[in-house]
């Protein structure tokens, strides 16, 4: 065999081997949602992500996972990437902003994955959380839930002890909430907001925090039997300006202006610029505030945190017991190549199964959408009562409007502006009328 022929055979062999190797690795999944920010590298969460991806690649030879960082302004970036055909194959999507993607047909109906991967059983998810990813029962499923949180009320045990008030219990009412907040609001002389000697100009401990953001108050309207827009998203007339909604907004405003149990936005702004809100809460300057599960992370890592320094209770009820559930889920792009689809579905299955969700529970940022993992987290949690309080709210949780209406960001912005004007002294009915007109104009487009 001549030297030239040998060389030719060698080249053919190398090319064939290389081609074989490439073929074995020919499915690469581009995934967003499994890379921590730079400052969190080396943390248990970082290790959990890496172990999960390593384990998945090991269990699925021929599939490699390219974990991408979550870019800033992800929603905007994602839309651009989807339009340009450069979007990731799988990403963790906030359900509050998924509707625009659904309307544009950008996300895969996950029933396809259920058909492809037998282990992917939908019973693993909380039904109410799964329904956030559906427009109609038994209809398409746009993403499989990763985690979620209902909005609850956090309370400072320090503030309650200082005021000599017992912590609230789930199922409490609006009247009980106001009475509790009054007892918790103390002036420099130790008088509470129920006392005739109370000095609102010298408050040292506030009962509650009210802010303009609609995501923190929309469920107050629901609790009073009202709403902000029609169920079909066509109008705000008869909803935001209904007597029930006006009453709920007035009730919220009165916490600041009439009962004086919450600081005005200006006072609040000044207070938290001096010392962060969570610091103030943990030292008892604020007794209660609305928030989701994610706040546990900030509270437990705060320098002022000690075990038992705060608790969590469900939302107070009036006409109804209600809260909003913010959720995120794993989404696959609708135009994923056929050769990648199976691997992508297997990845989502692995990311939502008990094994990985148990590992991820260590972050504490949200409740696992996997029911078994969520139940296990209650048992292994540093404070099982807090986890139980969150889980108890699940049955009262409603899907965020952003998961249904693509133009929700515009409507929400109008609601924020309306509440800002009301908290600054604007008349409720007049400001609501302005907001209704603005929202209707937007909805009419």
């Amino acid at each position, binding site marked *: 065999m001549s030297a030239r022929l040998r060389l030719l055979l060698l080249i053919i062999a190398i090319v064939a081997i290389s081609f074989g190797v490439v073929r074995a690795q020919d499915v690469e999944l581009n995934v967003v949602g499994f890379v921590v920010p730079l400052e969190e590298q080396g943390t248990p969460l970082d290790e959990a992500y890496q172990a999960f991806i390593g384990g998945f690649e090991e269990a699925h030879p021929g599939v490699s996972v390219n974990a991408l960082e979550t870019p800033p302004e992800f929603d905007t970036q994602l*839309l651009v990437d989807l*339009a340009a055909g450069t979007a990731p194959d799988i990403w963790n999507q906030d359900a509050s902003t998924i509707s625009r993607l659904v309307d544009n047909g950008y996300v895969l109906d996950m029933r396809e994955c259920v058909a492809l991967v037998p282990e992917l059983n939908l019973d693993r998810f909380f039904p109410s959380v799964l329904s956030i990813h559906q427009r109609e029962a038994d209809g398409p499923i746009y993403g499989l839930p990763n985690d979620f949180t209902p909005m609850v009320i956090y309370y400072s045990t320090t503030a309650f002890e200082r005021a000599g008030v017992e912590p609230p219990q789930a199922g409490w009412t609006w009247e009980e909430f106001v009475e509790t907040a009054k007892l918790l609001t103390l002036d420099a002389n130790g008088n509470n907001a129920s006392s005739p000697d109370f000095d609102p100009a010298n408050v040292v401990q506030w009962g509650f925090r009210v802010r303009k953001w609609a995501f923190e108050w929309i469920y107050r309207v629901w609790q009073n039997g009202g709403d902000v827009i029609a169920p079909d998203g066509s109008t705000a007339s008869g909803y935001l300006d209904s007597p029930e909604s006006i009453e709920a907004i007035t009730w919220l405003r009165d916490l600041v202006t009439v009962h004086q149990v919450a600081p005005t936005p*200006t006072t609040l702004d*000044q207070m938290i610029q001096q010392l962060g809100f969570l610091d103030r809460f943990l030292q008892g300057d604020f007794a209660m505030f609305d928030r989701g599960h994610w706040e546990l992370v900030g509270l437990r890592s705060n320098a002022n945190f000690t075990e038992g320094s705060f608790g969590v209770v469900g939302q107070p009820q009036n006409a109804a017991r209600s809260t909003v559930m913010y959720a995120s889920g794993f989404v696959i792009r609708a135009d994923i190549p056929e050769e990648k689809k199976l691997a992508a579905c297997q990845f989502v299955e692995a990311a939502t199964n008990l094994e990985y969700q148990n590992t991820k529970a260590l972050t504490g940022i949200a409740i696992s959408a996997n029911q078994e993992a969520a139940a296990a987290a209650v048992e292994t949690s540093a404070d099982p009562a807090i986890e139980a309080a969150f889980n108890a709210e699940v049955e009262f949780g409603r899907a965020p409007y952003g998961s249904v209406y693509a133009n929700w960001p515009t409507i929400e912005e109008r609601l924020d502006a309306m509440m800002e004007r009301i908290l600054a002294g604007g008349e409720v009915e007049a400001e609501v009328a302005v907001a209704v007109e603005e929202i209707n104009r937007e909805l009419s487009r």
Partner: protein
Amino acid sequence: MTNATLAARPQALRSFWRRFWSRSNEKIGYLFILPSLIHIIVFLFIPLIFSFFLSFRDWTKPNFSDAPYVGLENYEFLMEDSRFWQAMSNSGYYTLLAVPLGMAISLGVAVVMNQKLRGVYFFRTLFFMPVVSSWVAVSIIWLTLLDPNVGIVNYILGGLGLPQINWLGDPRSAMPSIVLITIWKGLGFNMVIWLAGLQAIPQELYEAAAIDGANRWQKFWRVTLPLLAPTSFFLAVTGVIGSFQVFTPVYVLTKGGPLESTNTAVYHIYRRAFQEFDFGYAAAQSWILFAVIFIATIIQVVYVRRRREEIQF
């Protein structure tokens, strides 16, 4: 058109290119400006034309194929959009404060910096430093300085026995605060332009005025200021255009608040486009903003021409 004319065309074209390439200086000149020209065409003219066509479409979806033609609908909607006009009004308020104040203060500084003083070059550099600093970086620094509780500005006010101000948190003071920061940031640029104008005034005119018995104030009022008219025209026009386009300090310092008091036109357009994904409508808003700036510029040009004619006759 005759066959002879048609045949002459390629000939004329070839002749043009031959003449063009034979002028080596021109050729080199064009080659030098080519990168900038490409940059301007790709990143300015094409988006500009695109945004004009976009303003007649309802583009709320990522693919342009999903942007139906809606005629003047965006412009009609805009006419009754009180929030947009409030934002325009905020931009107008900002411009009215920032341009005259900025010009006046920088003129004062330029007059001082035009004197033969020790260390004048150092101070000129010092005044110019904010111009070359990043808007985001200086905004963050000002955010700290203007903090109502721990900021140095309120600390000084407190030391002087003056009341504390919630600079960026109060709707009455938020816009003036942004104006002050903008004036500080642009002071060096305006100063350099004023300096160029001041140094172009012939000394003989001051000497003649001195012979006529003019004092310093009269010299400034009767000689300096009239001869700075072209400079002030340039600064006023560029100042108005720039002020109507203010964005970064609003984005970093106030996000349009409190109570929408600093929600300027460009920030409003940004929100509409990139937070609410309503690109067609945002494009229409941009063109209305362009029209307003264009009209403001025309008014300035006409005013200056008339003044010039009045002086000449």
